[in-house]
């Protein structure tokens, strides 16, 4: 006797809340899923759990005091945020940093790009079950955290740039340590490549998963590795070279299909390019001061503060009043780990910004996430979300 059980089966759509704190998703975001079986009919992404009023706080602080806040945006590559922010203010002020400063910003930005990509890919493979893979990535990342610590004194929150320069020069022996770290990273990346790039288990989860078309990606405002995986070779470092990027040679790796696997490959290839940039920039590193010699922006040397009246006044003025960019507006942007990070600053001539808007690169990607997820299975959320590299600090500000 056969029983027709199809009439008893529930065929309603199921509403599932994934997150806000889900073990297989890094970052805190809620995804409201409508499921037909295991297939996603629609997904509504709700961010905002890490919102802490970045822009409001900026409007209450002086220009140089905002630098530590920018650390907390994309906290896996804070120095790129520092650089992008001071670039916007320097653009408004019309000052150009010294050549040594430009090179050091380039070198340290690339080190942070490495930490960003290592964290992103490492966390993505960990969420797919390859926990040991994560340890390889973190091992390489630790090399750069140590290097950054030797320069800035902090492992994650650097606050290292200033309007018109930066806090310190690099310590002695930094070059040799960097070369050693790069050599070690190349070895680790080769191991990682052997672990994942042709791994059957990994390919099954990422190939042709999370595809986005070139036109859609541009229309959503997506930049960075996510856009380059679709085949668009847009990189701020090449398109509008800032710092010392016009003086070093590197390539922009692009993908073809715009799926999770292409994003993995683009990130892996970009790490090699970053190391190339660091090597070239270290070899060419010019001598000279790291700060512009302009008492409106940079503290005078201590000798001058104690012996001359001008030095004393300038020091006092900078401590009490900070910099005063001219009235107006400027949009400064740099290539962050996730894409174009931009700062739109408006000044009324005072020592606090009227507006300090940050254009977060992963915001646009997460905005497109709902559309990308449609038609996929629930399990595909994990690799797709991993390849987005959603950083809560930057996304929710």
């Amino acid at each position: 006797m056969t029983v027709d059980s199809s009439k008893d089966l529930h065929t309603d759509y199921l509403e599932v809340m994934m997150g806000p704190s889900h073990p297989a998703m890094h970052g805190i975001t809620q995804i409201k899923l409508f499921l037909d079986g295991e297939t996603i009919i629609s997904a509504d992404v709700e961010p905002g759990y890490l919102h802490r009023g970045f822009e409001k706080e900026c409007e209450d602080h002086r220009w140089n005091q905002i630098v530590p806040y920018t650390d907390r945006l994309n906290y896996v590559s804070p120095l790129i945020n520092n650089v992008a922010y001071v670039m916007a203010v320097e653009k408004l002020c019309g000052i150009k940093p010294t050549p040594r400063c430009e090179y050091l910003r380039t070198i340290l930005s690339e080190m942070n790009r490495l930490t960003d990509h290592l964290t992103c890919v490492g966390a993505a493979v960990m969420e797919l079950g390859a926990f040991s893979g994560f340890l390889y990535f973190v091992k390489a990342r630790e090399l750069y955290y140590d290097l950054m610590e030797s320069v800035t004194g902090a492992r994650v929150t650097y606050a290292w740039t200033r309007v018109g320069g930066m806090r310190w020069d690099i310590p002695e022996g930094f070059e040799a340590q960097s070369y050693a770290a790069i050599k070690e990273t190349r070895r680790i990346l080769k191991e990682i490549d052997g672990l994942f790039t042709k791994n059957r288990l990994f390919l099954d989860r990422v190939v042709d998963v999370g595809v986005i078309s070139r036109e859609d990606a541009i229309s959503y405002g997506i930049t960075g590795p996510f856009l380059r995986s679709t085949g668009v070779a847009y990189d701020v470092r090449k398109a509008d070279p800032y710092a010392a990027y016009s003086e070093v040679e590197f390539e922009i790796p692009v993908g073809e299909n715009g799926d999770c696997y292409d994003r993995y490959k683009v990130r892996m290839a970009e790490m090699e390019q970053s190391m190339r940039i660091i090597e070239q920039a270290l070899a060419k590193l010019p001598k000279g001061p790291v700060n512009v010699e302009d008492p409106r922006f940079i503290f005078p040397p201590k000798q001058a503060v104690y012996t001359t009246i001008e030095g004393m006044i300038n020091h006092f003025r900078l401590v009490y009043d900070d910099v005063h960019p001219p009235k107006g507006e400027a949009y400064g942007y740099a290539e962050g780990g996730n894409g174009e990070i931009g700062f739109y600053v408006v000044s009324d001539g005072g020592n606090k910004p009227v507006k300090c808007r940050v254009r977060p690169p992963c915001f646009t990607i997460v905005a497109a996430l709902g559309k990308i997820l449609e038609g996929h299975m629930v399990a595909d959320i994990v690799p797709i979300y991993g390849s987005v590299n959603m950083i809560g600090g930057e996304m929710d500000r």
Partner: protein
Amino acid sequence: MSIEAVEKIKARFPEAVEEAHRQAGDDTVRVQRDSWFTVLQFVRRVLGFDLFVDLTAVDYLAREEGLPRFEVVVHLRNMTTGKRIRVKSRVPESDPSIQSVCPLWKGANWFERECHEMYGILFKDSPDLRHLLLYEEFEGHPLRKDYPIDQRQPRIPLLASEERRFSRPADETPHGHGPGFQDKP
């Protein structure tokens, strides 16, 4: 940035362009609020600025009398030529609304949602204007200049079931944890 694009916008919409300037290398056009959508449609479809970079607003509360309070700002990039442009429009406090540009760029929606909750600017004909970063019950618009930085938000009322759990006096709770902890039966 693109000076040609600014000239083309000026030639195409001579009465809509209120101001055009180039400061720190950024080309900027300020247009009338009523022609916001038409100008941006021209910028998107004819001039080819296809990458939606950013949309935000600025609150000029302390500005001289008579000038509209808000300014909505859009940054765009042309992926073919690599040029950039900034388009702005002034929005008065009495009627804080402007046409939505969601039909032109898919990415515009989330930026408009954020701008809506932070500044209270209404984007007309937008498909979705729910809160994005703030919670639903949030009162006021935090990025407006007249919203104090230390403003506190009212507590969200508890549900009836939650009310019962929290209504017990603090000294009657086990281990002195204060209200909220339930006794084990």
